[in-house]
């Protein structure tokens, strides 16, 4: 049975327990990092469903909660230290720069700004809305709907139609509260498209601008090319947290882990169970295997030295003259 750990959930302001990421799950995440956004979020959501230990409806988690969960899973399952590489895109410079990052430091940097509930109630004339970070369920429905409509993810059309709307959870019309999360996505669109423009404006200035400003000063990544000194930085933004996750999971440890797996599978009988272990556990086993290999090699060498009587005899008799054989003619 895999280890589990508590993860503090910002939207709930209390922890939930999750099993560590298994190697198979880690491999699934790495596989979808270069796929489209729908594949990525579907995989991440599925892993949350599989790994949650606490009794909780995971569909209520927000996209920010999911980011924190996967950040925590990476730290607890693979270790907090990651090495990121980047090829410089400066003029005629293609130098590869490596940077070591401690994910615990990232948590310390962003926690003060995002460890809170973002739920906000706004009103305009006889309308009102409750805004929040989108739930993973809402996000998934939006992507599925747009996938069917053949709208390119991250396109202007996609963002224009969905970004603001995805942050609205409830709408009040003349005192009547309508929970949009209980409706199908196309029904949500029918309602939200009829919302007065003034209310949409309020949502932009009274909620969306605020959450962007909350994290606008945080640098996620800052690198300087060793050759041309060109600087590269990625700012942390609520709207790009999936991209930040991709960078975190696509670090240099992926390749090392694959070598580790091959070594462990070839040296042990754990081949069939490796998938269930977390990457950190696999690394520990690999270390044991390597240590064991070194020990065995040293013992064998010693053993070989002990039974080599001939070299000992040769050394003792080297100085003696050879006597003629009695049978010589």
């Amino acid at each position, binding site marked *: 049975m895999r280890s589990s750990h508590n993860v503090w959930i910002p939207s709930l302001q209390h922890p939930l327990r999750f099993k560590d990421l298994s190697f198979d799950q880690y491999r699934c995440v790495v596989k979808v990092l270069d796929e489209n956004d729908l594949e990525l979020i579907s995989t991440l959501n599925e892993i949350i469903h599989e790994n949650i230990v606490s009794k909780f409806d995971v569909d209520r988690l927000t996209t920010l909660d999911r980011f924190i969960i996967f950040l925590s899973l990476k730290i607890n399952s693979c270790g907090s230290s990651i090495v990121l590489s980047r090829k410089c895109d400066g003029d005629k410079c293609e130098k590869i720069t490596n940077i070591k990052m401690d994910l615990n430091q990232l948590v310390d940097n962003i926690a003060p700004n995002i460890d809170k509930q973002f739920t906000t109630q706004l*009103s305009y*004339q*006889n*309308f*009102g809305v409750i805004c929040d970070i989108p739930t993973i369920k809402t996000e998934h429905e939006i992507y599925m709907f747009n996938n069917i409509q053949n709208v390119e993810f991250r396109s*202007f*059309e996609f963002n*224009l*139609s969905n970004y*603001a*709307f995805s942050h609205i959870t409830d709408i*009040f*019309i*003349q*005192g*009547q*509260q*309508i929970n949009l999360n*209980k*409706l199908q996505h196309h*029904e949500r669109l*029918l*309602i*939200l*498209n*009829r*919302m*007065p*423009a*003034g*209310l*949409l*404006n309020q949502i932009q*200035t009274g909620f969306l601008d605020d959450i962007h400003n909350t994290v606008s000063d945080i640098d996620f990544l800052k690198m300087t090319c060793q050759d041309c000194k060109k600087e590269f930085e990625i700012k942390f933004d609520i709207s790009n947290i999936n991209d930040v996750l991709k960078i975190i999971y696509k670090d240099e440890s992926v390749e090392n882990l694959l070598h580790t797996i091959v070594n462990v599978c070839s040296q042990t009988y754990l081949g069939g169970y490796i998938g269930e272990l977390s990457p950190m556990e696999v690394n520990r086993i690999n270390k044991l295997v390597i240590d064991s290999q070194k020990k065995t090699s040293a013992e064998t060498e010693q053993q070989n030295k002990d039974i080599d009587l001939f070299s000992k005899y040769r050394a003792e008799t080297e100085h003696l003259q050879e006597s003629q054989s009695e049978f010589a003619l």
Partner: protein
Amino acid sequence: MEETNKPLKIDEIIGLLDKANKTLETKVSVASIPDKIDLAPLNAFHTKNIIKSAASGLFYDYQFTIVFYNILKEITKFSLDKLSIADKAVLLLELRSKNISDELEVEVKGTKKVDDKDVTDTLKHKVKVSKVLSKLSFKSDEFEEKVVETPEYSVVLRFPSIKEEYDFTDHLYKNKIANVDEENKVAIKGLIAPVFVYTLAPYVKKLKIGEKEISLEGKKVDERLAVIEKLSANMITKIMQKIEDTFALTLNKISEVEVEKDDVKYKGFLKLDAELFIQK
């Protein structure tokens, strides 16, 4: 706010929304007619379409004209045949003031003396749109017919209606602009002449040759364009001049902003396009 537990069906929710939106209707004054007209609020779908038109490339102005016409059809029952493009300019400002924000930033320019030399100075000035609207006043003769004569024939000009502007823009877009590659400078240059004709044509309402008077209103766009293309260069020049001396002045009056700072008079114009609904 109250919360009720009764789950509403989607039709009921939409009915409730439409009823609530109706309470946001306002009566606004326009330029050419003394009556006030009822205007429903802009909704999120309208705003999205306006933003999409602004992002549609080099010809975003034409896209905005088409989008805004369709929005006006939804938010007012008043016939868009009877409202002129001057009324449209006023409606744009009213919608900005009531749906987005009453404050708007505009760039104004003035000439000031620096070391005895005249230097152009540019300022960013925040105006209250409602104040701009309250200062507007129009004379009835601004919307009357204007006659332009040459020895051979004469034409009668009047402000294009919002519907006419839409018809001509839609025709221009579909027939000339839609397939033009924006990167192709030669193709873009080739649009100058047709755009010129499409701009003048909606103003020309009647053609008088001797005793015969031909009304162009109600005719198809193709037919009206064909007439304009046959007019002499002399007549075209006179039409352009008349538009500049009369109709353009009325339109400029609506969007003009004047401000005085440190004894320097600054002047600018509000951009009456999609930017009005995007700018904070």
